[in-house]
């Protein structure tokens, strides 16, 4: 079975770097991007199973990324992570069909468990 592909979009380099380091050890293939535009271009070339995206980014908003991914690649799971977490943004994210929403600081083990569940066909939380 092919390794599952994860894309991380976050303008904080450390986020992508750490997710890449921990997830690759578990056999995932991880690609990290600091900006949304090149990430979306890459998505159109390569199918990814999971996209982890930050909410506030310099070029394209995380909500916009979510909308595009869910429109163009409905099978791809999207997890939003953000330091700007509040009730409004999380409700908006779920309304736009995000598969999960993690406020920063993110617990990597939770993220792993959630991604594993999602890939095994778990429904997104209600």
């Amino acid at each position, binding site marked *: 079975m092919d390794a599952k592909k994860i894309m991380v979009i976050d303008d904080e380099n450390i*986020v992508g770097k750490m997710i890449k*380091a*921990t997830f690759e*050890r578990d056999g995932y293939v991880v690609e990290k991007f600091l900006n949304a535009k090149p990430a979306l271009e890459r998505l159109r070339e390569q199918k990814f199973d999971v996209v982890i995206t930050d909410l*506030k980014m310099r070029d394209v*908003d995380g909500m916009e990324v979510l909308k595009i991914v869910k429109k163009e690649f409905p099978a791809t799971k999207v997890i939003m992570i953000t*330091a700007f977490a509040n009730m409004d943004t999380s409700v908006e994210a779920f309304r736009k069909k995000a598969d999960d929403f993690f406020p920063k600081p993110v*617990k990597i083990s939770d993220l792993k468990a959630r991604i594993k569940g999602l890939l095994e066909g778990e429904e997104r939380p209600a």
Partner: protein
Amino acid sequence: MKLVYKIILANTLGIIIIILISVFSYHEFNMLKAKLSFVEIADTLNASFLKMRLAEKNYFLYKDVSSLQLIKAEIRRSKDMTGGMKRKIIVAVGHENFTGLVRRLDHYAEEIDKIGTSDKIGISGQDIKNRQLSVREAGRDLKLFSGSMVRLERKKVNGIISASLDGLLYFFSLAILVAIMGTYLFFSNMFRNLSRIERATNSISKGNFNKIAEWKMPNNELGSVMRAINSMCDELQTRHEKLIQSRKLASIGILTAGVAHELGNPLNNISMVAQTFLELYDDLPDEERLEYMETVLQECGRIKDIVKNLLDFSKPKDTEFRVLDINAIIKKTLKLVRNMINVAGIKTELDLQEKLPEVFIDEDKIQGVLVNLINNAIQAMSAKGTLFIRTIRQEKEDKVIIEIEDTGKGIPPEFLSNIFDPFFSTKGTEGTGLGLSISYGIIKRHNGKIRVKSKVGVGTTFIIELPVYISKEEGDGCEEDHGD
């Protein structure tokens, strides 16, 4: 000197002058009255003497004995009058003249008596002639003396009237002089102090709480008013500072939301590095472990900077004017509000002119003004708006211009003239209406100007003008202009 003493002194001086004028006039009028009453007596006496002389002539020409009787009767009348009016005559002409008159009248009476007796005894014609001659001489002497006295007294009356008029003129001149000098001496200081008070209160109404210098205060009631104004200035200044501080705290409330979010990123980074570090610990080579720890330290540094910025802004500081680069302050302020801008999803475009001359400003206060204006701009714009910040040097007037422009909803023209008034707000319950009025006061105290341009639906631009700092070597120094 206390005002109440000055007023008492001025009134006393006035009263003294009035008393002096009254005493002088009383004395002069009394003198005049005595002289006039003598002239009246002298006129009666003169008339009597004239009658005597006429009768004397008749007697010598027609030997009319009744004429002699008439003369004697007139002599008696005149003697009665001089005796009865002795005191009045002496007061008017003096004792010497009085005795001169009485002596001449007595002499005339003696000569008349002699002439009367010479007829009866029958003396030689030559003796009679001699006696007639003596009578005539004595009569002429009496008439001349009394006539000259009357003329002299009339002259004296005229003299008294002129002297009285002159005296009154002198007194009035003195009164006017004293009034002018007294007003100047007593009240010029008072008027000066009153205009000082007027200037101070006008300046307070314009929001400048400049105190009246202690050494300029008189030691009287106006001094007390000045001291009261100064203590009011202190109180207003303190309240104003508190107002600025409370406004700043309100800004901090907004800033804190941004800061909390900004803290989220480095905290998340530290957390992720630590989790990865623990998870991969056994597999990580030493250099990577070190790299991880260095990353943690770097992120801690980021947090420290954010917290320091916030503390710097929120800490109340004394007014401290320094020569500073406005571009650096704008960049510093933007760091502080970066998250506010990020949260609102607003773009910023900076166009800061290079090599701007320095300005003499209170950094803390100017930063407060900038945060306030940026905050207003953010609130006026929806997401995807753009905030333009420009600095320009205006060489003609030696000014540095800061423009803060938003692409927001704009301000309706009818509100533009009130926008800097205290408690005026277009934000309804969200705004206190104090931010812009405080900003206006701060810029004014920097000898600067703040104005606004706005078009509904297009955006608003706030324009701040600050004078360029001119060092003492170059010019007359800005410190005096700016000093509080």
